[in-house]
């Protein structure tokens, strides 16, 4: 019997097979660090008198609580400043490469890795951040870890792990215009639930996935964790190789040929068997949004706020009732009539150049709905530079948006970019948890296209709702 891609990646990185119920020891090719989940790990090393085993396989960026304004001034918030300074001190002490605020390679760790060419197929990638699953888009086994594991990887460049189960997510058909990778993943999570992927590595397959760009594939893998999965992967193909080629750390010459030859073997064998399979028809998709307080509480934008009484499962019914109360929504209200205060375009889910281009194409020549705030936060400083080179910043600013510096920003509100209590957002980020974007804030997860159309109309909207649909979508 053949093996799945996830199993091949596992076998490729097996240092030692566990005996008597002990976990396998797996080698880690790339370890990314940021300021929030690393200080206690470095402290642990120091206390135990340990060194970082492979500084040359480790990289740090500042992203979670860095400001997106006034980045040339000292960070105003004292605890944020302390944490960022601690990362700089730790990087200097342990000899780790760091991209600090103001550096052209600073940005969200999951945007920076791929853009430097440090993420490529066939790797194991970890970071003390659950959205590390993003890098699975390259055909790598990539997953988030806790701080103890960060310390473990720093000290040993390995992790003791139990094998994951495998799940195929088959997405076939053609994605209709106006629907995006974000709608695919929101629909998958709504279908299998926030716990549906627990214990699994999800492999996204099918012609609708093959047709996606690398950045769109990253959006999908990014949110694997919201279905509870440990990781999400997509087998590498020409799209992947084209994306990696020529990037600063991409192999060159004979190394490139050798690498590609190996990468072509990274596919699930035809006779391999997955532990579970889920099918989704891309032809049926339409713009998707979340209405509740977990990413599984999602529906098509064309629907209405659900009635908790309609849920058969008691736990789901209670969760829906709690969510609607928190969200301040009434059952039966069409989603398109829900007014929004803030639109957030950014994050490791949708803060890449293609996302900014897609939104700009809709906003160009249009004006912002009154009273709506639009925050545009590029995923990295390079994305910001690229957008400026293409004139996208001018489109955003002319529209009335705030054009910010790179970082995680309002996705999790650790920096000053937060919602006020009861403020409602349409957000291209990945989590709609209670208080995620600011205490009492109400989040609807959306695609960049829905975010842009919402900023124009002031209520949750898709580009189809705009009077003169933009040429880019026709």
């Amino acid at each position: 019997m053949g093996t799945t891609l996830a199993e091949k990646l596992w076998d490729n990185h097996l240092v030692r097979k566990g005996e008597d119920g002990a976990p396998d020891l797996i080698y880690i090719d790339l370890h990314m660090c940021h300021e929030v989940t690393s200080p206690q790990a470095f402290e642990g090393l120091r206390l135990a008198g340990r060194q970082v085993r492979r500084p040359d396989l480790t990289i740090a960026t500042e992203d979670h609580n860095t400001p997106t304004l006034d980045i040339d001034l000292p960070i105003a918030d004292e605890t944020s400043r302390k944490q960022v300074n601690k990362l700089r001190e730790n990087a200097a002490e342990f000899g780790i490469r760091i991209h600090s605020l103001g550096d052209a390679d600073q940005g969200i760790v999951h945007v920076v890795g791929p853009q430097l060419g440090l993420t490529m197929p066939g790797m194991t990638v970890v970071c003390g951040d659950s959205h590390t699953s993003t890098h699975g888009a390259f055909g790598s086994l990539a997953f988030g870890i806790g701080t103890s594991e960060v310390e473990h990887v720093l000290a040993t460049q390995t992790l003791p792990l139990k094998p994951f189960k495998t799940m195929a997510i088959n997405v076939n058909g053609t994605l209709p215009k106006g629907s995006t990778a974000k709608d695919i993943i929101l629909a998958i999570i709504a279908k299998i639930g926030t716990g549906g992927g627990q214990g699994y590595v999800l492999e996204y397959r099918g012609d609708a996935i093959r047709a996606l760009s690398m950045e769109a594939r990253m959006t999908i893998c990014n949110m694997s964790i919201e279905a509870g999965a440990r990781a999400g992967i997509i087998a590498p193909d020409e799209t992947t190789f084209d994306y990696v080629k020529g990037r600063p750390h991409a192999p060159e010459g004979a190394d490139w040929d050798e690498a590609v030859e190996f990468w072509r073997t990274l596919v699930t064998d035809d006779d391999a068997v997955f532990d579970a399979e889920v099918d989704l028809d891309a032809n049926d998709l339409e713009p998707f949004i979340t209405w509740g307080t977990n990413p599984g509480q999602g529906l098509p934008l064309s629907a209405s706020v659900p009635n908790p009484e309609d849920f058969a499962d008691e736990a789901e019914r209670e969760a829906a009732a709690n969510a609607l109360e928190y969200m301040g929504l009434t059952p039966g209200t069409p989603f398109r009539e829900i007014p929004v205060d803030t639109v957030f375009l950014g994050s490791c889910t949708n803060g890449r150049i293609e996302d900014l281009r897609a939104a700009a194409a809709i906003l160009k020549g249009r004006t912002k709905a009154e009273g709506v705030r639009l925050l545009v936060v590029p995923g990295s400083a390079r994305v910001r530079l690229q957008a400026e080179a293409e004139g996208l910043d001018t489109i955003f600013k002319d529209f009335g948006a705030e054009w910010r510096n790179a970082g995680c920003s309002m996705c999790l509100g650790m920096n000053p970019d937060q919602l006020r209590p009861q403020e409602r957002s349409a957000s291209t980020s990945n989590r709609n948890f209670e208080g995620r974007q600011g205490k009492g804030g109400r989040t609807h997860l959306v695609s960049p296209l829905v975010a842009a159309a919402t900023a124009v109309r002031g209520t949750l909207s898709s580009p189809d709702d705009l009077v003169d649909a933009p040429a880019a979508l026709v």
Partner: protein
Amino acid sequence: MEKFTTHTGVGVPLRRSNVDTDQIIPAVYLKRITRTGFEDALFAAWRGDADFILNKDEYKNGSVLVAGPDFGTGSSREHAVWALKDYGFKVVIASRFADIFRGNSGKQGLLAAVVSQENIELLWKLLDAEPGKQITVSLEDRTVTCGELTVPFEIDDYVRWRLMEGLDDIGLTLQHEEDITAFEGTRAGWRPQTLPAKHLPSVHIEAARPVDA
């Protein structure tokens, strides 16, 4: 790490499913650089509500949390485990845990015990009937006992052994350092390295400024 064999303490019924790590500890508390002192941050948003269970006198000294399914979903923050531990919790019982949370718990000596939802409902009823009632969790026998009721729980054999022995993961791995070095000798030369650093030319990044609303 302290050895864990059995624990007896006040059971706290948390009748909520999908308790994500943003609820266990909101992101604003993640800016600390210490490993302890997170007790005030546990369920910070909910603790503002006088009716929240931990605000009731009977449950203030709770140490066994009995929660709904899919506990610990979302962000990988290990601070969630630290906050539960710092508050005084030794055990969390649920029918399903998020993978990262469960992994983090095992490494920090917090027992994440998987009990069927049917038995969780029974525990909830007992705890509701007699607020402040104690629960005994035996890792040796893999059982949860509340009054007359004893139900089994599931836990990974290896995690159980490590908890009972109080062993540190890094020390265990470093016993196999020779295997790691041998593996490193087999890695292809084209595998990326972060050092020496390669990148596109450095460019000045313009600082964005606040705009008047």
